[in-house]
């Protein structure tokens, strides 16, 4: 029976799935970049993303249906995500609601907002729609090399912008806020302002990712962001476990770290495709995602504990 199972697995099928897997990984990497900003730079566990991803997707799809060019619709997906992030920031800083709870409140309310934007639980993009920024059709099309180059170039530009921003005075203030808010305030930084700003930027990236993802899969769904935070975290943590040492000490280590987040997202989707290929029921995929994050979070911790025990 086991032999039968292995015989039924087709290695070529896995290989054929890789381009699509990579494309999805790269697109989700944009979202992971946003998660990196809140989770790592601001030290704020932001669950808004589960809602703002679908908000970006819904915004883009509805605008495309209304006749807007898909590229331009992404600007509004970005803005919609930013607005969501700002709400979380204001709930936290203006009304004193604990960060994680503020983000959950926004996330839950976004479910209704997203339904409101779409009018129902999902909306598709016409199959004949021209000028999509990304589409699963491009992955198998004649221009696939060009498509991947465009996608990678776009992401490198995003990395460059984020790298530049966190090198500016404003970006440095956000980094100081995340690292040591007491020090930041003593140096005249309004930590409430920097927190709202970081959440806004982060969710802008998540909204942008949602818009591109909707174009890629040809539809927006009110549930498409469910568990997104876990995928984002998985990408961030995988990239740190694998590339952490490689990036450290380099001249523009921070830029490498940001780029590594995309690689982390791709690796996550490769693992995901592998598990699907092994005929694990797709119902279990959320469980799989959570396990990946739990394992990768646990590894550095357990390593540290073992090291201590060995010394003792």
């Amino acid at each position: 029976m086991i032999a039968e199972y292995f015989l039924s697995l087709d290695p070529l099928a896995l290989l054929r799935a890789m381009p699509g897997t990579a494309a999805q990984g790269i697109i989700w990497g944009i979202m992971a970049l946003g998660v990196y900003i809140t989770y790592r730079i601001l030290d704020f566990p932001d669950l808004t993303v589960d809602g703002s991803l679908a908000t970006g997707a819904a915004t883009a799809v509805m605008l495309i249906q209304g006749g807007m060019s898909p590229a331009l619709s992404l600007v509004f997906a970005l803005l919609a995500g930013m607005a969501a992030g700002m709400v979380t920031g204001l709930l936290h800083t203006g009304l004193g609601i604990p960060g994680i709870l503020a983000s959950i409140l926004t996330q839950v309310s976004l479910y209704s907002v997203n339904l409101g934007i779409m009018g129902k639980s999902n909306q598709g993009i016409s199959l004949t729609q021209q000028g999509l920024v990304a589409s699963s059709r491009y992955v198998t099309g004649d221009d696939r090399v060009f498509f991947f180059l465009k996608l990678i170039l776009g992401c490198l530009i995003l990395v460059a912008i984020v790298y530049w921003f966190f090198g500016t005075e404003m970006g440095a203030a956000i980094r100081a806020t995340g690292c040591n808010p007491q020090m930041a305030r003593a140096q005249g930084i309004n930590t409430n302002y920097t927190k709202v700003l970081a959440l806004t930027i982060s969710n802008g990236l998540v909204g942008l990712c949602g818009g591109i993802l909707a174009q890629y899969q040809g539809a927006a769904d009110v549930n498409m962001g469910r568990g997104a935070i876990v995928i984002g975290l998985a990408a961030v943590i995988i990239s740190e476990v694998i590339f952490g040492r490689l990036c450290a000490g380099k001249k523009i280590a921070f830029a490498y770290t940001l780029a590594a987040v995309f690689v982390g997202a791709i690796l996550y989707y490769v693992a995901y495709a592998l598990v699907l290929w092994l005929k694990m029921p797709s119902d279990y995929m959320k469980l799989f995602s959570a396990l990946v994050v739990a394992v990768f979070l646990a590894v550095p911790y357990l390593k540290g504990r073992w090291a201590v025990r060995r010394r003792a």
Partner: protein
Amino acid sequence: MGYMLEIKNIHKTFNKGTINEKKALDGVDLNLNPGDFVTIIGGNGAGKSTTLNAIAGSWLVDEGNIIIDGVDITRLPEHKRAVYLGRVFQDPMTGTASTMSIEENMAIAARRGHRRGLRWGISRKEREEFKKKLAALGLGLEERISTKVGLLSGGQRQAVTLLMAAIKKPKLLLLDEHTAALDPKTAKKVLEISDKIIEENQLTAMMVTHNMKDAIAHGNRLIMMHEGRVIYDVSGEEKRKLHVSDLLKKFEEVSGGELDNDRMMLG
């Protein structure tokens, strides 16, 4: 010329109305002349650090006013008061951002009171200035300007924090037991650096300390606090002639009376 700092009858009670209610400041009055370097001593819970936190704006006082160089800052949030202040904390971790480099930390301090925009976080000219300032510390830190502060020792971090506190020539420098967490040798070095920075920049400063010798040896004025009030205030010649034994006597005088009361309560 007016006072650099006026503290007028400030009160602060923590956890009001609960079983943990604690009257931390009970009518503190204090005026500092420009250039005063005041050392503050007192027992645990006397209100030394609390006074500094009240000035810095860690929370708002219940009553009274705090005025710096004629500006009433009583109601200003912490980050807005930072314009007038330089601060060094007891815990060397508190004053700097550990994941950022020495130069990045200093650049953040150099922008205290300025709008932080989209210019690059640090300029080439600044980097040279920072190197000069670091070289003056004599700790070799000018060679490690892009090292993450988290990799420095406690003493090195306090030295960097001192530079950051003084970088904008604040109207008032607040040193909150900033050598208490260091070994004696490092503490001495950091105190020397503090003296030097205060003198070179002609700063008005307040230094909380547990060490009576340090309190006598540094500054031009000494105050003792007890139960949220200033109970002793000496300066000039009188302070210079002080001995630790004088302070101990004074200390016993106030807390001794309290002991008697306790005994009476027990009797």
